[in-house]
C-alpha cells in the first residue's frame, strides 16, 4: 500500500545531502538572509511612514478642528490649548459639532442616502464588471490587451471633462433625448439630468474600472482546469460558477467593491453636477459646511463621522477574516 511516509523519506534525504555543502556557502547564505531581512523592514517601513505623514497627521488636525468651537476669525475655530494668565495650559474640548450632527436629521439622512447610493452603485458595478472581467480573461491574447486598454482608456481624459460630457448627453436638450425623440419613442424630453438616475450613471461609469481591474487581476490567477474538473465531476456551468468560480474570486470581489464603495460614498463632483439640487450626498454637505457656512468644526465632524462609518465595518470584516484564516 502507498505509505504517506515515502514523501517524508525523500525530504530527509534531500536535506541530508544539502548539509554536505561547504561552510562557505552557508556564510553567504546567512549574509544574504540578513540583507533580505533588513530590506524587508525598509520596504515595509516606507508605506508606514507615508501613511503617518499624509494620513494620520491630517486626520489628527481634522479631529482637532472637529472638537473646537466655531468662531468668526481666522482660522475660524477656537484653539485646543490656551494659556491662562497664570501660565497654566487649559484644554478646551467641545463636542457641540458632533451633537449637532445627531440632532439635525439632515445629516443622518444624507449619510444614509450616500451609503444607499454607493451600495447600489457598487452592486451595479459588480454585476456589470464581473462578466466584463471574465470575458476579458477568456478572450484570446491580442484581444485581451486591447480590451484591458479600453478599460483604462477613460483615465486619460480629465474626470471633470467626462462628467460634463455626461451632462451634455443627459440634458433635456441633450443627445439621448434628441435621439429618442427622433426615433419617435417619446415626444417630449424626459428628465434624465439632475436625478438619482444621473448620479447612478455617473458613479457606475466613473468607478467601474476600479471594479474590473482587481477582478481581472484575481481571475488571471484562476486555474481554468478547475472548471474542467468541476464539469468532469458532474457540475453544470451554473453550479461550477457558484461552487468554484465565485468562492475563488471572492478576494477580487471584495477588493473591487471596497475600491468602488469607499470613494463613491464621499463623492462630491458627481452628485453636484449630475444630481443638481435633487440629490444630496455627504460630500456635498461637507463642501457646503466648509465653503458656504464656514463652519469648520461641523465640517470636520462630518468628515470624521464618515470615516468612522466606513472604517469600522471594514475593521470588523478584517477581524472576522483573520480569525477564519487561523482556524
Amino acid at each position, binding site marked *: 500500500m502507498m505509505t504517506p511516509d515515502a*514523501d517524508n523519506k525523500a525530504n530527509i534525504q534531500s536535506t541530508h545531502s544539502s548539509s554536505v555543502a561547504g561552510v562557505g556557502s552557508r556564510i553567504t547564505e546567512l549574509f544574504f538572509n540578513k540583507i533580505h531581512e533588513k530590506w524587508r523592514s525598509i520596504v515595509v517601513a516606507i508605506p508606514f511612514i507615508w501613511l503617518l505623514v499624509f494620513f494620520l497627521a491630517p486626520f489628527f488636525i481634522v479631529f482637532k478642528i472637529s472638537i473646537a468651537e466655531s468662531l468668526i476669525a481666522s482660522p475660524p475655530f477656537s484653539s485646543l490649548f490656551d494659556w491662562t494668565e497664570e501660565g497654566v495650559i487649559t484644554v478646551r474640548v467641545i463636542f457641540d459639532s458632533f451633537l449637532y450632527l445627531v440632532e439635525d436629521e439632515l445629516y443622518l439622512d444624507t449619510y444614509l442616502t450616500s451609503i444607499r447610493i454607493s451600495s447600489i452603485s457598487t452592486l451595479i458595478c459588480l454585476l456589470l464588471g464581473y462578466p466584463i472581467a471574465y470575458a476579458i480573461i477568456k478572450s484570446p491574447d491580442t484581444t485581451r490587451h486591447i480590451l484591458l486598454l479600453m478599460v483604462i482608456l477613460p483615465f486619460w481624459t480629465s474626470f471633470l471633462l467626462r462628467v460634463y460630457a455626461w451632462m451634455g448627453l443627459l440634458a433635456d436638450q441633450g443627445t439621448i433625448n434628441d435621439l429618442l425623440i427622433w426615433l419617435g419613442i417619446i415626444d417630449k424630453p424626459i428628465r434624465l439630468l439632475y436625478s438619482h438616475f444621473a448620479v447612478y450613471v455617473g458613479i457606475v461609469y466613473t468607478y467601474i474600472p476600479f471594479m474590473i481591474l482587481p477582478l481581472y487581476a484575481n481571475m488571471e490567477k484562476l486555474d481554468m482546469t478547475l472548471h*474542467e474538473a468541476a464539469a468532469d465531476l*458532474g457540475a453544470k456551468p451554473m453550479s461550477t460558477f457558484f461552487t468554484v468560480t465565485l468562492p475563488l474570486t471572492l478576494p477580487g470581489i471584495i477588493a473591487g467593491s471596497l475600491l468602488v464603495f469607499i470613494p463613491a460614498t464621499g463623492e462630491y463632483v458627481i452628485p453636484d453636477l449630475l444630481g443638481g439640487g435633487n440629490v444630496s450626498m455627504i460630500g456635498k454637505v461637507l463642501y457646503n459646511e466648509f465653503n458656504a457656512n464656514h463652519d469648520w468644526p461641523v465640517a470636520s465632524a462630518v468628515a470624521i463621522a464618515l470615516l468612522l462609518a466606513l472604517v469600522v465595518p471594514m475593521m470588523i470584516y478584517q477581524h472576522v477574516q483573520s480569525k477564519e484564516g487561523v482556524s
Partner: protein
Amino acid sequence: MTIFGFGWEIMTNETNYQDRQWLDPDAEPFIQLRGVTKQFGSFTAVKGVDLDIYKGELFSLLGGSGCGKTTLLRMLAGFETPTSGTIYIDGMAMNDVPPYERPVNMMFQSYALFPHMTVESNVAYGLKRDGVKKSEIAERVDAMLSMVELSDFAKRKPHQLSGGQRQRVALARALVKRPKVLLLDEPLVALDKRLREQTQFELMNIQDKLGVTFIVVTHDQEEAMTLSTRIAVMDQGQFMQIGTPTEIYEYPETKLIANFIGSVNMFEGRVVSNDDDHMLVDSVETACRFELGAVAKAEKGAKLWVAVRPEKISMSTTAPQSVGTNQIKGTVHDIGYLGNMSIYRIQLDQNGSSEGGSLVEVTVPNQVRPKDGKHAIDWDDEVYLSWHPESSVALFR
C-alpha cells in the same frame, strides 16, 4: 490494503477471452473511436484514429511529448470536440454530450484539486452534484479516503498535502463517483521513483477490484509496460501499434517502436532466401548470416533490419563448435555494471577493415560475483555472440 466493500459490478465473463476481450470477435467494445481527428487551426493534433477499448481494460496511450495523448483523452472527457469522427462510450455517440453528463471521470495531470475546499469536500464534490443523500455521501467519502489511506487528512486543504497525497486525493475524487471509465493523464509523473512504483501496483489493484475501465496517458514506457493490458503507441497524432505489452516488446512492427520500447540492436541486411518456416538474411556490415524463425513476407534481395533485444543474446569467450547462423564476433568495448546485471557494449569485427564496426548491446545477469574487481568477461576480451532464430524480428520500416 483495506477491505473494500462496494456493490460494484465485477466482470463475470465465462469465455476464454475473459482477460483478452479484444481477441473475442463477439465482444462489444466499451469505447469506440472512429476516424477521430482534432485540428487546432491548421495543426492536426490527432489524425483520424480508430480504437476499440473493452470493459475492464487498463489501456495505455504511450508516446513522446506533444504526440496528441492529452488531446485524445480530453476528447474522451468532452473538453475538446473532435473536428471529425465519432467517439462512442457504452454504445452511445458522445458528440453532443457535455462533460458533466458523460459516464467518465478524469484525473488531471495537475490534479486540479479545488484549493478552497478540504480533502473531504473535494472528494464529496462530485457526489453532491449528483444529489446523492448526505448520509451516503459521508459513507462513500469515508470509504474512499480510507482506501487511499488519507482518512487522517480529511480536514486538510490541498496546499497542506505532499505531492503523493494530492495525487491520491485526485484519484479518490474521480473514483468515488464510480465512473465506467477513468481517464488518467500522466498520473504518476509528479511522484518520485519509489512512490511511483508503489502507486503503479496500487492503481492496478484498484482497477482489478473495481472493474473500472482505465485509460492511462503516459510517456514512460516502463510504466505502460507494468500497468497495461494493452498499449497504443502514438506518434504525431496517430497510432503506430496497438497491442499487449508482450506483443509490443517482442514483436514491434517498426524500427521506431522497437527503439521506443526498451533497447534493441538493429542489423541491416538483405534477404537471401525465404521459405515456409525460416528466412535467411545476409548482413550488410559484417560477415554474419541471420536466420529468423518467424516468417515475414519478403522477396529475395529485399532490404530489411533484423532486430534483437540485448537480453536475447548469449555471449561467450569460447568460439562456437561449428559455424552457423546468428553468430557474430566482437570485442568488449564497455561494461555498465548495474548490480543485478551488466550491460556490455560489444564492438563488432568489420569485414576487411581495421577500424571497429558498430556497437551491439548485450545484457547479462550477474549470476557470479566479479572477483577482485574483474568481471567474468572483461574489457577488451574477444567474445562470440549468438541468439536463437526465434528471438529476432524482421523490420521493414
